[in-house]
Every structure is written in structure tokens, then in C-alpha cells.
């Protein structure tokens, strides 16, 4: 087992000429909850997709547990995408079958009990479920695994504040404590209290990566306040007046 869970070196991704990630260097250890923070379009989703193998970097390299992205890294990464990824004809239980077949770390009993506590009926067809319920099913699939890395892309973006706490609570009570959870979001205040580390992503570059405690100590302000400061400046940087 490699001490570093995730390593990115000089990671660059361009869509056409526009860079979405621009020379990202990043090292993540184990057993942390990390916030991947940045405004829309800062490259959060692109970074997560590269770590999952859904996008290929234009330049640079990625290693997860010391391995390049491939079947092994996919078997230890649990990914919550920013969209629904299942076929409508399936039931939640069909998806549990699928996860149990492909991921050795999927705990079916845990999935069923999570469904019960989230109020999801797993024998319902996904097609008949509301958007919120589908999101819950997806969260159950992701968190019922005992993965080494949980990459959660905007898990709380589309839901009301009450449900946010509910989702965060589900994440916190279910993740594998040896594993690292990476949560991408722009809603900092909602997740600040659970974070160990924060990464600020701006225009495809890491502008800050530190523990939350160190940020509070050095900057004398909350991560949320620092975030507003760092990203507010952008509006006044040149441009047309």
C-alpha cells in the first residue's frame, strides 16, 4: 500500500485550446476528508473525472495508490458523478447486484440499511423515482463500498439545506475511515465543519492546499471567508470597465 493515495503531477487538460486544468500538482494522504473548492468552471469536475478514468489528461500524470488509472484504481475508487448514470429500467436492487458483482468492497446489507434510513424503497424502478430519490440511490451505491478513495462531485449542490445536512451525515457515518473522501463543491459554509483539508482550485490551478486548522490559524479566518476573498478578487482583475 502506497502512503500517498492520490498523486497528480503537472496535470493538464485542454478542451480545444481552453485549459480546464493547468499544471496541477497535488498529493493526498489517507484517512482525510478533503474539500475540492472552487467556483463553477474552475476544473473540479475535470480533475475528478481524470482520477476516475472518464477523461484522459492532455499532459501530466496521475497515480492512485501508486498505480496509473486502470482496473485496479477503479476497484478502489468510489465515484459519485454529477449526473444520473443508470438505465431507467433498472431497480435499485439491480444496481446493488451489479455493484456486488464488480466491486469486492460493496456491502449489500449496508446498502439496504442505508436505503431504509434514507427512505428509499430499493425494489422500485428507478424510472418512477423522483430526482432526489435517485440521487439518494446513487449516494447509497457510493457509500456502501469500503473504498480507499471516495470522489464525490457536487453531492450537495442540487438539494435544499436540510437535505444537505442529511447527505453529509450519510457520508460521514458511512465512509471507510482508512479511506479519503474528496468532496467537490462551491457551497463551502455547508461543509466547512467536516473538512480536514481544503484545496482551492482557480482557473485550473491549485492556489491553496492546506489543512483547515492551518488555514484558520495562519489566515485568522474561516475557509468560507478565505474562499470569498480569494475568488472575489477575480472580478476586479482587469477586464472591461
Amino acid at each position, binding site marked *: 500500500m502506497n502512503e500517498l493515495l492520490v498523486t497528480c503531477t503537472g496535470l493538464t487538460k485542454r478542451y480545444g485550446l481552453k485549459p480546464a486544468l493547468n499544471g496541477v500538482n497535488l498529493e493526498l494522504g489517507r484517512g482525510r476528508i478533503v474539500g475540492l473548492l472552487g467556483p463553477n468552471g474552475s476544473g473540479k469536475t475535470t480533475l475528478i473525472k481524470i482520477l476516475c*478514468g*472518464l477523461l*484522459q489528461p492532455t499532459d501530466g500524470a496521475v497515480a492512485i495508490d501508486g498505480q496509473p488509472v486502470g482496473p485496479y484504481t*477503479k476497484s478502489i*475508487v468510489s465515484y459519485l458523478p454529477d*449526473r*444520473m*448514470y*443508470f438505465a431507467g429500467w433498472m431497480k435499485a436492487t439491480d444496481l446493488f447486484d451489479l455493484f456486488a458483482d464488480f466491486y469486492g468492497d460493496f456491502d449489500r446489507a449496508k446498502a439496504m440499511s442505508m436505503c431504509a434510513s434514507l427512505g428509499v424503497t430499493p425494489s422500485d424502478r428507478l424510472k418512477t423515482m423522483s430526482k432526489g430519490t435517485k440521487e439518494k440511490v446513487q449516494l447509497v451505491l457510493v457509500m456502501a463500498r469500503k473504498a480507499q478513495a471516495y470522489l464525490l462531485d457536487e453531492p450537495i449542490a442540487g438539494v435544499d439545506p436540510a437535505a444537505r445536512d442529511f447527505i453529509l451525515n450519510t457520508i460521514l457515518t458511512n465512509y471507510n475511515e482508512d479511506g479519503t473522501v474528496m468532496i467537490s463543491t462551491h457551497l463551502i459554509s455547508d461543509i466547512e465543519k467536516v473538512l480536514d483539508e481544503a484545496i482551492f482550485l482557480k482557473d485550473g490551478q491549485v492556489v491553496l492546499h492546506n489543512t483547515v486548522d492551518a488555514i484558520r490559524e495562519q489566515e485568522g479566518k474561516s475557509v468560507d471567508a478565505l474562499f470569498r476573498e480569494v475568488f472575489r478578487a477575480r472580478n476586479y482583475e482587469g477586464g472591461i470597465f
Partner: protein
Amino acid sequence: MFGKLLKYDFRSMLKQFAFIWPAALALAVINRFTLSSLESASATGETVAAVAMMVFVSIMIAMFVITLIFVIQRFYKGLLGDEGYLMHTLPVRPWALIGSKLVCAVVLTVVSTLVAVAAILIIVSPVIDLGEFFHVIRWLWDAVCGGKNAANAFLACVELLLLILLGMAEGYLMLYLAMAIGHLFNKGRAAMSVAAYIGIHVVVSVLLSFTSNVFGDMLYNFFDNLFWGKHDYPWQAVHMSLWISILVVAVGSAVYFLLTEYILRNKLNLE
């Protein structure tokens, strides 16, 4: 892992076709009565035959179109659309994802063809004496392929079957490759897939006509020298031409498969 992928691909296929196949057969039974009542209602034999022909053609086209749409959708949506987020994060290699879709597509095509043939036989059964029909086929088979020809004819049938199956696979792999190329673009992916399909067709036909121009005569002379004067010349020629076709189709399939796999492995670009 490949077996598990197959399991899920077959399951999603059966979900759809568990309805479509029986529906086609049920429709055939209904049409059968319409046709027989048409016949008894003193319509001319020609009218009945024309209607039967129309039904025959429409069933074949319908089955063909439904199967093709399904095969395209399973690849486009299942691997390059939102479902791709799930499939490409499973701990499997890209070749397994493509292979599983392909096996499923070929099996689907075979079963759909059988269902379409069964439906047609059901429909025409009041008009055509099926016993007689099969009798004639049997007679033809015996005349051409019976006796000392049996072994060769059987072998040729096996080769033909192999060629047909490989041909299906090649056709689908060409579609897969076109979609894989199309998805590399950030905009207008469907249009780019169509353009890529046309492009591949052009390239392949140029290559084929080039090779047949250059090697065609050579090949013909080679066979002519090889077999001329031998007593089983026709059969040898049949086998040889079938095997050459199989080879050509197999090479095409392999090239499309490898290119598609390369794109999904190294250039995956899910939006």
C-alpha cells in the same frame, strides 16, 4: 469480469426484446387470419401474394430497424453517454466493455432474424403449403448437395455461417468505431459520428478496390493454377473464396475493434 458484463448486457437486451419478439409473433398470427380471410373473400391470388409480400418486407424492415437502433443505442448511450459514467468506472478493461456489447448485438441480430423468419412463416402458412415448401427446399438441397457432395456442402454451410456472423460483427464494429470517433469532438457528436461512418466507408471501399485491382488477377490465376483439372475444382474454389472472404471480414473487424479500444482506453472524453 467479461461474463459479468455479458450478464448485464443480456439483461438489458431481454428487458426490451422480451416484449418485442412475442409482439412480432402475435402480430404475425393476427395477420395470418387477415390474409386467409382475404383469400376466402375471393380476392385474386395476386392480391393475396402482394399483401403477403408487403407484410414480409415490412416485418423484415421493422425487425432490422429495431435491432439496429438498439445496438447503436446500447453503445452510444451505454458507453459514451451518461451510463458510460457507470460502465467506465467499473474495474474492467475497455476491450471487455466493447466485446460484451458486440456479443450481445450479434446474438440479438441472430435471434431477431429467427423471430422475423418465424413470423413470416406464420403469416404465409395459409397461402403457401409449408409442407410442400420445405419439401422443395429439401429436394433442392439433395440435388445440389446430396450424395458425394454432402461433406463439402456441409463445410461450405459452416463457412457461410461463420462469414455471416463475422460480417454482422464487422458491420457493428464499424458503427462502434464511428461513434467512438464522433465522441472525441466536444460539439455535435452525433453529426460527427455520422460523418465518421461515411468517412470509414469511403476509406474502406477505396482500399478494397485498390487491393482487388492489384491482387485480384493474381489471386484468380493462383486459384486457376491450383485447382484446374482437379476433380473437385468447384468445391475447392467455393471453400477458398469463402475463406478469403472470412479473412477479409475478420481483418476488418479486428482493425475496427482495436481502433475503438484504443480510443476508449486512451482518448475517453465523457462530457
